């Protein structure tokens, strides 16, 4: 009896580990199989500029462009803002307030993305519309700004942790040599924390690529690369917003559906690479999960 529960227990833990490990493969396989139609029928035409389901043109470049520009804008704003703020919370603010800051950040990170979307519609898009005198405030820039706020807590928390892990003796010896705070941070702390900072930025990058709801509501959803290409005050489309808006109305098994899944597969692979890179970069492999 005792031996058999021991065995059943062993099968149970093996089984659950297999299931956990299997899910990623299952998702990948399902996406690959369902995008195969698009890859074989449309082929290289997937990499063109025109998406028109009625005429059978499925060029994904506008969506790729939108995805990267929106992510680029969000990182451009959030990385400097986040790193400077993290320097304040870890190096200047007395550490007894650290708990408060961490809780506030967790609170901010916990706001569901749909609520950011609502705030984007009700405020940001209207502000952008008024400031730049546009017909509609739902633009690539609006989505980028909104996204930057959403990834800010990730960057601040991870950067703060990175600085916090550096032992105090580095700061003390540098101070003893007569360096100013700015010099200590620039010459000593940042070089030490560099791998962790890289991981933080990569993770934020991955999160920004995959963000759906907020972007979908404020980006305007036009499948075109703006004219000229740097005109970010025009509506655009990202992979996620395209999937979110169209997938439910596409019939399962059609080439259209398959082309959509192909974009999903692309996004999946991109984010996977970023996640793995950032986990490798994260020296402190203490098993903590950074979302």
């Amino acid at each position, binding site marked *: 009896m005792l031996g058999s529960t021991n065995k059943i227990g062993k099968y149970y833990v093996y089984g*659950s580990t297999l299931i956990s490990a299997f899910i990623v493969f299952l998702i990948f396989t399902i996406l690959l199989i369902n995008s195969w139609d698009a890859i074989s029928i449309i082929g290289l035409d997937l990499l063109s500029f025109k998406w028109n389901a009625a005429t059978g043109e499925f060029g994904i470049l506008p969506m790729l462009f939108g995805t990267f520009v929106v992510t680029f804008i969000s990182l451009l704003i959030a990385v400097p803002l986040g790193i400077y703020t993290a320097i304040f919370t870890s190096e200047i603010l007395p550490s007894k307030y650290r708990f408060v800051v961490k809780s506030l950040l967790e609170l901010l990170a916990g706001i569901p993305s749909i609520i950011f979307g609502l705030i984007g519609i009700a405020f940001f898009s209207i502000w952008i519309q008024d400031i730049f005198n546009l017909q509609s405030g739902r633009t690539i820039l609006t989505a980028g700004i909104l996204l930057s706020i959403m990834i800010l807590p990730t960057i601040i928390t991870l950067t703060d942790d990175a600085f916090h892990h550096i032992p105090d003796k580095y700061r003390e010896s540098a101070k003893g040599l007569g360096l100013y705070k700015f010099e200590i941070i620039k010459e000593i702390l940042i070089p030490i924390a560099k791998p962790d900072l890289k991981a933080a930025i990569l993770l934020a990058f991955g999160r920004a690529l995959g963000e759906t709801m907020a972007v979908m509501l404020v980006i305007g959803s036009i499948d075109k690369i703006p004219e000229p290409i740097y005109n970010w005050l025009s509506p655009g489309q990202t992979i996620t917003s395209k999937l*979110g808006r169209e997938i439910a109305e596409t019939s399962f098994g059609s080439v259209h559906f398959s082309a959509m899944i192909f974009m999903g597969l692309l996004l999946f692979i991109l984010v996977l690479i970023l996640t793995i890179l950032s986990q490798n970069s994260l020296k402190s492999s203490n098993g903590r999960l950074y979302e």
Partner: protein
Amino acid sequence: MNRKLQNNLFYASVGIAVFVCSLILLFLFGIIIWNGLPALSLDFLTNTSAEFGASGGIVYQIFGSILLIIFAALICLPIALGTAIYKSEYLKNDTVHKIINTLIYSLNGIPSVIFGIFGLIFFVNILNMGISWFVGSIILSMMILPTVTLSTYQSINSIPTVYRESSSALGLNKWQVIVQVLLPQGFSGAITGLLIGIARAIGETAPIMFIATAFSGVEFPSSFLEPVSTLPTHILALAQQATNPAALQNAWGASLVLVILVIIFSISALFIRLRHQTISKR
């Protein structure tokens, strides 16, 4: 440039960044509370929605959200426990450990909309389950699996080896050691992970909007294979008719309720973690 000047410039830019971040934080919470409070009332919480959400309440939405996350937690817990025990107690090979870790981190990184289209293809179309709340629960359980697994693993793995050795010396076999010595300790880690996972899952829209929810005509489901309405998808539907002020008002009300639910789950996770820490320090 003068060193002192440089230092002061640096302090100034840090100050500006902190000011901007605080402003953002204040703005976000101010907006959610300011716009949400007028919509909140007992009627709003206990009535069903009418006129496509423009009037009435959100009782079905609250019920749907809670139903989804409860089942997601129930599905996730046994698998996460098993994986954590395997990782901590059975697995000796370093390479396999690394591979499993990579897979878990990858699962955690997958964008939520990908889970949505995966569910749409696999459960709704291939397994032909149709749009149902149970499919939504399964998908959400996949999303929170990494969080729960790693949190459980940490608490089981941090139990000192002495406990394992002394209970083995008393004649317990491996499984008895796990069930009677390690699990009672590790359980708080699992619950913490579950609460953190739930706090994230309850606000997710993208994974469930194609596969588990319908906007109108939803009542309490009588079987596993019926759609429900949830708070996030309700907010989405209302946000898309942003020109109608009554609908927007209700969207803010639903948002405040959703944020409060998220905060309740996060704070309970925090309390359990803190309590457990003080116990293990004794």
